């Protein structure tokens, strides 16, 4: 019994990973757009589970908060508002299938390359960890929210700010596009 539970605990990552794959398959395989969004939500929640299984609590919870809580809600919103009849929906999907095959093929090749590099390539010469002087007085293994924040606001402050400016640009661009369309 004890052994069985420990085995499950060690393999939680694999379990969540397989379920995330199932969610991803549902996303591309289901007929209705809403079901696709639900599959996507399922995949996102399971990826959060993967992070939690790796003891990266902050990343896991941020995954739930940002993707499951924010972005997928907006997807759902858009999909619900875009009412397509079954026939037109089918046509749209048919039209895109040729390009989709090409895109998937390119994606598969790229990801195979990445996986080959990750699985069989040499490990990086030094591990990406918090600088020891930043980690002072911090139990990094258990306080990873604090550890992430220290790294983000000390070593990587400039990339972090640039990223937020890029997001702001996207936001301003969306508002500008929507405004010009209406006038």
């Amino acid at each position, binding site marked *: 019994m004890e052994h069985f539970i420990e085995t499950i605990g060690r393999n939680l990552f694999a379990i969540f990973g397989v379920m995330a794959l199932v969610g991803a398959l549902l996303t591309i395989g289901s007929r209705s757009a809403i079901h696709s969004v639900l599959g996507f939500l399922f995949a996102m929640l399971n990826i959060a589970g993967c992070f939690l299984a790796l003891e990266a609590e*902050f990343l896991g919870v941020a995954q739930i908060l940002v993707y499951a809580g924010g972005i997928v*809600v907006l997807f759902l919103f858009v999909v619900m508002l875009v009412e397509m009849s079954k026939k037109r929906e089918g046509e749209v999907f048919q039209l895109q299938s040729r390009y989709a095959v090409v895109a998937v093929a390119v994606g598969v090749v790229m990801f195979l390359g990445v996986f080959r590099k990750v699985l069989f390539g040499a490990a990086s010469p030094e591990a990406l960890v918090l600088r020891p002087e930043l980690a002072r007085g911090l139990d990094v293994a258990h306080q990873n929210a604090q550890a992430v924040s220290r790294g983000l606001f000390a070593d990587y402050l400039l990339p972090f700010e640039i990223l937020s400016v890029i997001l702001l640009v996207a936001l301003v661009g969306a508002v500008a596009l929507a405004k010009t369309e209406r006038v």
Partner: protein
Amino acid sequence: MPTPTLIQSLVITLIQCLLVVIFVFVVVPLTVFAERKVLGHLQQRLGSTRVASGHVGFSGWMNRRMWKMGRVPVLSYWRGIPGLVGDVLKLILKEDIMPTKADKFVFFLAPSISMVAAIVVFAAISFVPGTFFTLPTWFPFVGGLPVSGGIADINVGLLWILGVATVGIYGIVLAGWSSNSKYPLLGGLRSAAQMVSYEVPLTLSLLAPVVLSASLNFSEMSSRMAIGMPFWALVPQVIGFLLYLTCGFAETNRLPFDMPEAENELVAGFHTEYSGMKFGLFYLAEYINMTVVSALASAFFLGGPWLLPFGLQGLLNPYLPGFLSWFGAPHAIFFVAKIIFLLFTYIWVRGTIPRYRYDQIMAVGWKYLIPLALVNLLLAAVIRCFAV
């Protein structure tokens, strides 16, 4: 202190989950009952009084005693409680109608998402810091082991609560969509827009305690906010409390913000097509969400398991004489009392303030609450910088 084995700790977690479920299923029906009675008295009615087990039950016996003593029976406040059993039976036994053109799977999924998201939030809520109680030694298998005050007092507890609570939105949106009918769809869309908008000021108002206490852990935050704050932290706490409570009312879709089920415009909003226990799950989820919002408000602003709100306990504790030390220590009973008071406030506000128009709700959320919450956050940051 013996260290528990893996299975023992799992069993203890199971006991904690059981306690939380019992707590929820005691508090929620009593809130429903209190809503009828308090709302009745606020509107100068008596509320539900008819179902009172006649002259045979406990309340009948008490009533006869009171009349014999020559007084109007105070326990008439409790008349109507047996009606709750009837309500539950009605929810369980009623015919479960599935609209013909509904999306069967999503229609079935939506209430369960609402319910699960509402109750899973309790995993990160700790009722009392440290050990809640120690199991007696005669207890089978896990005797003599301590039971902590929260199920999983994780390092990012607050983020967990906020994240899982946002998943609850899907229940409402999907219910509105899958019913395949206009009123539920409009109700679902409205509520999604409202909840997404009000999540921003809600999170911002909770950031003030995060800044002041420098933690994301639930019990650490509540204890630092209760007993570790300087006097000046009183100001952002009071403002933050009012902001949080307003946004909490909007998040749980309660009056004066109950747009999703504005019955004079949208029949019953997103759950128009639901009946039987599926409707019951939505109903339960709403009240559980109210309990969660109350729990967060009382933990971060009202002092949590300590007696006094707004960090006053920490200022008072050094002057507390020894024989009153019981009042200076954390107790789960204070926490639960504050939750119950805030649930009463929910009903109180419902009986006092009429419903907003939809554009008014959005204007209040975006134009007033968000800037106020930002100013409050700034205030908290200044106090954190100079006073803590």
